[in-house]
């Protein structure tokens, strides 16, 4: 069915990136998660406009692509800040004052989990276990792991990321 795709935001259309990445994986439908990872890595998020492009390239329905993008917590539908900070909210970190760290992080950045600071510097995300459970509480800054975190160290990190 071809109707009006009112959801497509033409300003962030990156059809080229999506089709180039898909062809890198031989347009195999089972590689959809890999393709979405690469797309998010290269574009910063998974733009709405990429969904029909991927559907066509992989010969699956748009609903299937949408279903996958919306199922997985990792995929972002909107652009993120310059840095993404993922704070672990799981039990091992909770046992080491992880909840206090989570509260302090939201307060310090003046955002809730899933939001980006107003200056576009940092996106704060919740994550359930980073496998850094003996050096908890832990977080991941972009791809850099950080353990034995405290609200004070978090403040210093925010300053470092802002500069």
């Amino acid at each position, binding site marked *: 069915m071809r109707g009006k795709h009112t959801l497509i935001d033409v300003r962030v259309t990156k059809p080229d990136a999506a089709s180039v990445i898909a062809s890198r994986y031989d347009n*195999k*439908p*089972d*590689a*959809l*998660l*890999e393709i*979405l*990872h690469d797309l998010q890595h290269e574009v910063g998020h998974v733009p709405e406009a990429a969904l029909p492009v991927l559907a066509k390239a*992989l010969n699956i329905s748009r609903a*299937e692509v949408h*279903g*996958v993008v919306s*199922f*997985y*917590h*990792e*995929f972002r539908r909107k652009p993120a800040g310059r840095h993404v900070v*993922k704070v*672990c909210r*799981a*039990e*091992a*970190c*909770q*046992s*080491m004052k992880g909840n206090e760290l989570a509260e302090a992080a939201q307060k310090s950045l003046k955002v809730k989990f899933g939001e980006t600071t107003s200056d576009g510097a940092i996106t704060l995300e919740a*994550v*359930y*276990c*980073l*496998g*850094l*459970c*003996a*050096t*908890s509480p*832990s977080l*991941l800054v972009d*791809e*850099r*792991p*950080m*353990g*034995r975190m405290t609200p004070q160290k978090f403040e210093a990190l925010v300053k470092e990321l802002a500069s």
Partner: protein
Amino acid sequence: MIKVYVPKDSAARAVGADEVADAIVAEAAARKIDVKIIRNGSRGLLWLEPFVEVETAKGRVAFAPVEAGDVKSLFDSKFHEGGKHKLSLGLTEELPYLKNQERLTFARCGITDPLSLDDYISHGGFVGLKKALTMKGAEIVAEVTTSGLRGRGGAGFPTGIKWKTVHDAKAEQKYVCCNADEGDSGTFADRMVMEGDPFMLIEGMTIAGIAVGANKGFIYIRSEYPDAIRVMKDAIRIATTAKWLGQNIQGSAHSFSLEVRRGAGAYICGEETSMLESLEGKRGMVRAKPPIPALIGLFGKPTVINNVLSFAAVPYILAEGGKAYENYGMGRSRGTLPFQLAGNFKQGGLVEKAFGITLGQLINDFGGGTATGKPLRAVQVGGPLGAYLPASQLNLQMDYEAFAANGAMVGHGGVVVFDDSADMAAQARFAMEFCAIESCGKCTPCRIGSTRGVEVIDKIVAGIARDENLSLLDDLCQTMTDGSLCAMGGLTPMPVQSAIKYFPEDFDRPAKMQAAE
């Protein structure tokens, strides 16, 4: 030239290992000392990271925990020649934490350079695979059956039986899939294997491929493990170039290729059928069983699915014989389990021991009690779906059956301790909340039950019709246990009900306040 080891394990990096390595390089250059830095895996004494070792004539000596700021004084005291320093710990091998372990799977981790094939081979690597290349598939399966190895992901299903089912299945294409979606909080053994000894996982999976007649394998690694993904991809490339993977392995008739696939932040994809869906590029919706994946698995083909630690145990089993592995353990839990001491531990880290060690020995003898120094209140074994146990249960032996008989589970071997500041009603609520966030949504008891569970616990904690709501929660838990499609909804009641059973006072506070008024 002096060899200095600074771990590259992400837990070490998380506490400054990269900065320490850089500082050592800079300081050595300034002092014109010829130092070679080797970025090894972690020894598993994680509370001591960054754990720096220097090779000496007597063996490797340890200095820990080292901060970048300590490096100057380390050189001043000639640590590179084994000189004494306030951070000296002596010979690594003599540290009781390591000496008292039974490391079969983690025999090499932290000792070698993870991506050096020479290191791997000179430390016993590929002995099992070489043997497997001379054996019939059925013989390999029989060896694994003899070992008594059971699924280390947590379900504890006998690996030999699973492999036999795939071996006996008739199909042109079969697959081997490694579940490296280690999502349980308090567990990191899979990550340490992948970052610290990746060729061992490759060897174990290749042996599985030869055993069941599969020539293609996938490693499904969670996206929360960027370092593990990088190291595994590099290791596969190196092994393929050296013909330990690919067509005609080491000139034999066997072929086996491997591919890393990334997860995307869905806890449910640690459930094996959900992982298969994800590997096929779909939403991670749990499949109904039967059919079992051993017969109808990835792309509908017979598939071996095992956890990282199950595959990682296989090279030892082939090299030393199933009987050697079976000699460790108790009852029907054979061999060793790499336990992970996590959270509020004074000495958190990886402890590989034979089954049969008590929970108390792990917590006190190895873990040294709580990090905060406060009394231990609760222990959660086996991840977010495991029971919360009180201090009175510390005499429980680590054994699949002993735990099951006590309404708990060993799971993937994660042990998380909480001190007396823990609010167990809040932990029970979190268990339901986590299930609500992570449920795939396919079955009603899990999808709806978890949300209702949060609401009912909120009412109980608020003191609203407490007795009625406690019995309603009990009924809900029963429905989730009996009616869920997989372990996500089926086991979420375990932490909830154990918290109510062992810590009833935490669900009773508002009523007490009312009574006092």
